[in-house]
């Protein structure tokens, strides 16, 4: 078994209203994602999942010097930022990709699949 991070990416400045312009569509996406989470729990693939507040609520802390230095905003200046993620456990990449495809359909977003280092 391998653990994978399934992350969902959005435009840096996108609000939930930008991501799901139609409120009914937003509700449907939330419901589908909730149902998918439930399936992950039942199938035993579930490890953890969560949605994140927007990147401008982030703070970067640098504790490598004598005094910790805090900076407002996300670490990466990239245009795309992580909006939420699942951590799942799967037999292999094929299973992880199949789950990612369902997660992607549920939340209406593209999903990056990345393996955790094992052991």
């Amino acid at each position, binding site marked *: 078994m*391998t653990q*994978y991070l399934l992350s969902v990416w959005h435009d840096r400045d996108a609000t939930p209203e930008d991501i799901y312009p139609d409120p009914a569509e937003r509700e449907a996406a939330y419901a589908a994602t909730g149902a998918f989470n439930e399936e992950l729990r039942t199938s035993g693939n579930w490890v953890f999942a969560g949605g994140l507040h927007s990147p401008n609520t982030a703070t970067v802390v640098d504790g490598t010097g004598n005094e910790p230095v805090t900076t407002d905003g996300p670490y990466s200046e990239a245009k795309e930022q992580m909006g939420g993620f699942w951590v799942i456990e799967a037999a*292999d*990449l*094929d299973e992880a*990709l199949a789950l990612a495809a369902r997660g992607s359909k549920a939340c209406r977003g593209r999903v990056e*699949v*990345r*393996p955790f*280092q094992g052991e």
Partner: protein
Amino acid sequence: MNDLPGGDAAIERVYRAEFGKVVASLAGRFGSLDLAEEMTQEAFVEAVRRWPTEGVPPNPGGWLTVTARNKALDRLRRESTRQARHEEADMLAAHEDPGAPVTSVTDERLRLLFTCCHPALAPEAQVALTLRLLGGLTVPEVANAFLVPERTMAQRITRAKRKIAAANIPYRVPRDHELPGRLRGVLAVIYLVFTEGHLPGSGEHGIRDDLCAEAIRLGRVLRELMPDEPEVAGLLALMLLTDARRAARLDAGGALVTLDLQDRSLWDRELIAEGHALVRECLRRNRPGHYQLLAAVNAVHTDAPAFADTDWGQVLALYDQLYAVTPTPVVALNRAVAVAEVRGPASALAVVDALDLDGYHPYHATRADLLRRLGRAPEAVAAYDRALELTANPAERAFLAGRRDALP
């Protein structure tokens, strides 16, 4: 064969035939492509050292597999610092029976092929891994085939192997419901190797015989492993029927010779017979697909004693079917060539002009030819110029420039 100093023709033949089998067998056994590749290479080095004096063993493939496997076990024992690893190696060794035939090597090769062509790998990495691990091409040979620096190719292959291990890409033949899609990927990789040999996009050569031969070899392996897949037969037939015309495709000056002007006595009758038999088999199965239809088109061409005998109505009907299966502008363009023969160049030009393929040099080459045949010389010259801008293949360039310069 840079890694095999002193390798003579017999060893070279064994190398080409057995490399992929040995890698596949070891990968199945130890679950590591890196280890499988390295130990296979070492086993061949030992063969090169020992066979010239001891003679080639009666079953060279079995000898190589057992030698590579023992080297892998030695390596694992040496490297293992944990007791568990020792136990694992001992357990594997306990099952070793040098007299037993190597278990289902064919299945292992199929697994290796599907792993190399996994859609989570970049297409260029799929091609590189397939040529390296199944074809046994050395890294410099693969680099040379795709005209990238050796270092770049080595990194590409290493990165792909690392991803397979880290992301836990499964080492198996896909399940039935995934098979059609995954098989399409494998066929695409093999055909990409072939087309790169048949009509290299760049470099000094008009044709790369070595890549064509390697693609056909992989096609034959796949056909042996999946004899019931019509598209596998179709791809092999397509490659054979295309390759059969190789000797007639270039003139003495290295320029491309079009089908209408080829000396058909130079065509390889044996390859054509083999290709035709495969196409007939596909027709019997009646489950047409992309490669089968392209093979059927080539069967019609290779069936005609002279260009004038070509059954263009049949070619056009096959392209209509192909367009139904693969409705792409490139198929529409190739179909237009048949339209020109059946309904005349004006009808074909109307089809071609409706296509959005400005960056594709065959589009301009086809357009140029139609304009030439319609007597619209200035427009034809412009189209030849545009095609020339877009291709670096020397044989094609010579052909296009010749046609352009012959215009009034």
